[in-house]
């Protein structure tokens, strides 16, 4: 450590003094909380129905009222479902206004558009609770598992409509399954490979659809939430039928495709299916519909058929529209947030820029909310357990080496220099909001103890034989490792970490590559150590997704074991067969995924977490870091605290429908 002890001490002293002086309200604002304690109770439960709240009259935005008057739209009561679900606003909202956000695409589902709309798919089956612990019915009325968990029945709300007014029914499910998922032109890879186990999709009536599986699928929420949910909503049956050969003459369709410059009907189908072009007119279920598209912006207008109302019977959303300003480089988004040009900005802003944003608050007329990143670790190291060089593989597979790496890192220094001291030094594990959280997982091997690291390395026979200051392999060969990563806010963390590794005599360097090259090399196990952040560790995701982080079930970006994953997912055709301890992990993961008994499932979750804490398959640094969310002073009902992460759909769980702008 280059900073003298007394300075460090002074820093903490002044920090403590400041905290005392400033009193609690200011301090509360700066705590990094992942859940706002002031959220209404109803946000944690199922959507109350209008009838339960005694709402009989519905009202709507003046913008739509005008159109109803002009005869362009049916009255609001006819547009809403029979008994619309309600959302309690943080404070009573007002209609009107267009919120500006910055995005790299003409799509509400990417970048900052998500802060206002969320991913469209998440509305289908359910929406996560604000703490990320559970998924509750949202657009659906509910669901039911059969006793053996092989049948899942979904209940649709009656009278929910697409943005063109056409009813949303089980027809849409059947169309997606029979005409899309099972169509070899549209889905060349059969659904068995990406949504395994579905035998049949059947509809008892317009509002009841049943998925029959060949195995128990007790924790399937998320498959619907993100997976099938999103897929079904992307194929409104009544609209897409016009571009599908099951309902049209194939030759005619191909001729039409060729007219548009495409070779075959499937490309044309996909072309029409994109919802980001107003002229193509594809209906959506989202709160906003695209009405204009230009190179530099996209204008969205409220969906007149959006099925939710507030607790007074006012149709949501409150905002009349959203303007996406298109940027090519995300640096521009940070500039615009600083200038106060965005109603809300969050994704891709850097925690290290918080002082900049606070500095620009007055000029830009916004407030900097401090949310939590919601990540188990902002930066995690994944040693390649399938390394192709035998000597290196032996080193990386040795738990002593991984522990040495972990304790060689001074997480406090990382935290202080790069996270304003406000992040959480922690091991790669679940966030503290999780029901499975235990300190012994998040604190395992995170102490800064270079002597222990040296001891562990000496013990492995990795000593400096040549006297160049770096350790060699036992046979005297050079021990040189590179961390494979792609440019991100993690870069400075890694730069600091390798310095700390050098201090214990490890010659580790950085190898920055583009993202697709990183994926390619990772899949080929062509790296020493790779880097990625640990997300998807809220309960909303974790039981379903856990394999990706803590057992070799699926590749994705978290991967210390690409070849074992390959072996598992290809049923042994490619990759390498995992050793027995890995097969044990896989067994546990399978139990978590399919055991109908909840208690037993939880037991296996803890087994996996304990194995990670002991073995450090991935090595964490700091997590749950402060993440700035820039909120314009005229935008209301945004929670002061939250998680800014995919797990909670980038804030869409905070009911962006109830955000509202000051009337102009």
């Amino acid at each position: 450590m280059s900073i003298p002890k007394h300075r460090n001490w002074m820093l903490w002293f002044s920090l403590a003094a400041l905290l005392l002086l400033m009193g609690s309200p200011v301090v509360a604002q700066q705590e990094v909380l992942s859940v706002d304690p002031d959220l209404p109770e109803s946000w944690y439960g199922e959507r109350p129905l209008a009838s339960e709240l005694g709402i009989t009259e519905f009202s709507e935005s003046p913008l739509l009222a005008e159109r109803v008057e002009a005869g362009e739209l049916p009255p609001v009561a006819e547009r809403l479902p029979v008994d619309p679900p309600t959302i309690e606003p943080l404070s009573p909202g007002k209609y009107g206004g267009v919120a500006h956000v910055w995005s790299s695409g003409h799509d509400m589902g990417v970048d900052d558009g998500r802060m206002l709309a969320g991913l469209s798919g998440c509305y289908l089956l359910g929406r996560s609770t604000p703490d990320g612990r559970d998924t509750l019915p949202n657009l659906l009325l509910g669901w039911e598992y059969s006793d053996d968990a092989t049948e899942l029945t979904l209940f649709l709300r009656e009278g929910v409509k697409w943005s063109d007014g056409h009813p949303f029914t089980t027809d849409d499910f059947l169309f997606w399954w029979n005409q899309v998922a099972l169509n070899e032109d549209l889905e060349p890879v059969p659904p068995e490979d990406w949504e395994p186990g579905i035998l049949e999709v059947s509809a008892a009536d317009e509002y009841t659809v049943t998925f029959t599986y060949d195995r128990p699928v007790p924790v399937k929420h998320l498959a619907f939430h993100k997976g099938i949910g999103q897929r079904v909503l992307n194929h409104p049956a009544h609209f897409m039928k016009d571009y599908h050969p099951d309902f049209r003459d194939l030759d005619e369709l191909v001729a039409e495709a060729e007219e548009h410059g495409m070779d075959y009907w499937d490309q044309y189908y996909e072309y029409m299916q994109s919802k980001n072009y107003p002229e193509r007119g594809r209906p959506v279920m989202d709160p906003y519909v695209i009405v204009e598209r230009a190179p530099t912006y996209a204008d969205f207008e409220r969906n007149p058929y959006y099925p939710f109302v507030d607790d007074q019977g006012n149709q949501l959303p409150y905002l009349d529209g959203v303007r996406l300003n298109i940027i090519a480089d995300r640096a521009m988004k940070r500039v615009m947030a600083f200038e106060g040009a965005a109603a809300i900005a969050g994704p891709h802003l850097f925690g290290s820029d918080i002082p900049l944003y606070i500095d620009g608050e007055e000029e830009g007329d916004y407030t900097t909310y401090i949310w939590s990143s919601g990540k188990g670790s902002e930066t995690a190291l994944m040693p390649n357990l399938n390394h192709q060089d035998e000597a290196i593989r032996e080193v990386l597979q040795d738990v002593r080496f991984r522990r040495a790496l972990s304790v060689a890192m001074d997480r406090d220094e990382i935290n202080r220099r790069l996270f304003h001291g406000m992040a959480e030094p922690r091991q790669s594990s679940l966030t503290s909001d999780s029901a499975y959280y235990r300190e012994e997982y998040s604190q395992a091997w995170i102490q800064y103890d270079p002597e222990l690291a040296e001891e562990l390395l000496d013990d492995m026979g990795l000593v400096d034989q040549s006297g160049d200051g770096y350790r060699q392999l036992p046979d005297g060969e050079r021990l040189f490792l590179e961390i494979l990563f792609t440019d991100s806010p993690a870069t400075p963390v890694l730069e600091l970490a390798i310095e700390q590794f050098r201090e214990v005599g490890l010659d580790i360097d950085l190898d920055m590559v583009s993202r697709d090259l990183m994926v390619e090399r990772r899949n080929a196990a062509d790296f020493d150590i790779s880097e990625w952040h640990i997300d998807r560790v809220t309960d909303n995701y974790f039981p379903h997704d856990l394999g990706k982080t803590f057992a070799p079930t699926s590749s994705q970006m978290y991967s210390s074991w690409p070849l074992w994953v390959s072996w598992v997912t290809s049923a042994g055709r490619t990759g390498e067969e995992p050793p027995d301890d890995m097969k044990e992990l896989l067994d546990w993961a399978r139990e978590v995924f399919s055991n109908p008994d909840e208690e037993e499932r939880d037991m296996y979750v803890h087994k996996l977490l304990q194995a990670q804490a002991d073995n450090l398959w991935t090595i964490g640094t700091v997590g749950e870091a402060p993440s700035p969310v820039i909120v314009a002073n005229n935008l209301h009902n945004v929670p002061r605290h939250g998680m800014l992460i995919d797990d909670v759909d980038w804030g869409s769980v905070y009911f962006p429908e109830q955000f509202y702008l000051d009337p102009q």
Partner: protein
Amino acid sequence: MRQNNEVTETSRSETVSRTQWQLIWRQFTKHRLALIGLVVLAVLYFIGVLFPEFFAPHSPNERFESYLPPQRIRFFDADGNFHLRPFVYGWQEELDMATWRTIYTPDETEIYPIQFFVQGTPYRLWGTFESGLRFMGVEEGGRLCLWGTDNLGRDVFSRTIYAMRISLTIGLVGVGISLLLGLTIGGISGLVGGAVDNAIQRFIEVIMSIPTIPLWMALAAAVPRQWSALQVYFAITIILSFVGWTGLARVVRSKFISLREMDFVMAAQGYNASQTTIISQHLVPNFLSYVFVNLTLAIPDMILAETALSFLGLGLRPPVVSLGVLLSRAQDLRTVSMHPWLLIPGAVVVIVVLAFNFVGDGLRDAADPYQLS
């Protein structure tokens, strides 16, 4: 042309070139900006390329407080006393939680005199000689961070000095290759003429009208991925030179054409001098000065290209320390508004490029004041 002709009409080519160089030098010294540029370059190459380890007070990866602002070198202390030996103050730091900023104020009770030729962090000069001798430094416990520190607390001044070694040398090879290509192809074009000349000229036109960015991006992606960052960049500069030779080729060609018609060449042909003799004895010395000018003007382009590549994320990458790398880490709003000292390496780029340009300009004027482009 007049001057050159007068000179070249004297006898042997060696004498010719020597007198020509002398003449150029005399002209050059009259160009004040060019002279200053030359001195600046000499100093920077001496410090940054030959002895960065000696001149940098710290090694590039030593860590101090993060975002320490530049220190002022003082001669007067808080009480107004004059110190013959310049000194810097120590620092007090304070974390302001309302703004999330660490505020550093000079601690007037801690005085660190700047010492010269001190023992500092040990290093290996040119990777071989072990030493710890540094040009300047302060006592243990103090820090000498004249241009402040970056996010990891590394001294910007020292890093900039280290960065010059790579930034000021890496373009040289590329420039050399484009020189070779330009000379050969331009020479062939000018000497042979006719259909060959025409074809080469069309080809040059094609190359010149393709924007460089896609070439950079594509080539950067096509380089074998096992290569280290430094190798990749080295490869890119070489590839860049395959694009950069066109300008020189055109100059060389026109030079050949105009020289071909000139009296002394005609005369040489007249008494049956061979083709090679004419080229080596008469033509080459005659435009060597142009080659030299072109060289001095191509190097700064390479340096600028390095920063542009770093900006696009295609150039050198940390932990390599180059001016482009230092700048690519500093190209955001936060730096401009809160830590502007991180942009000082940018000023160094400007100074180096300026100096090269002035030198090149002076050389051009000196070599032939009537040459236009």
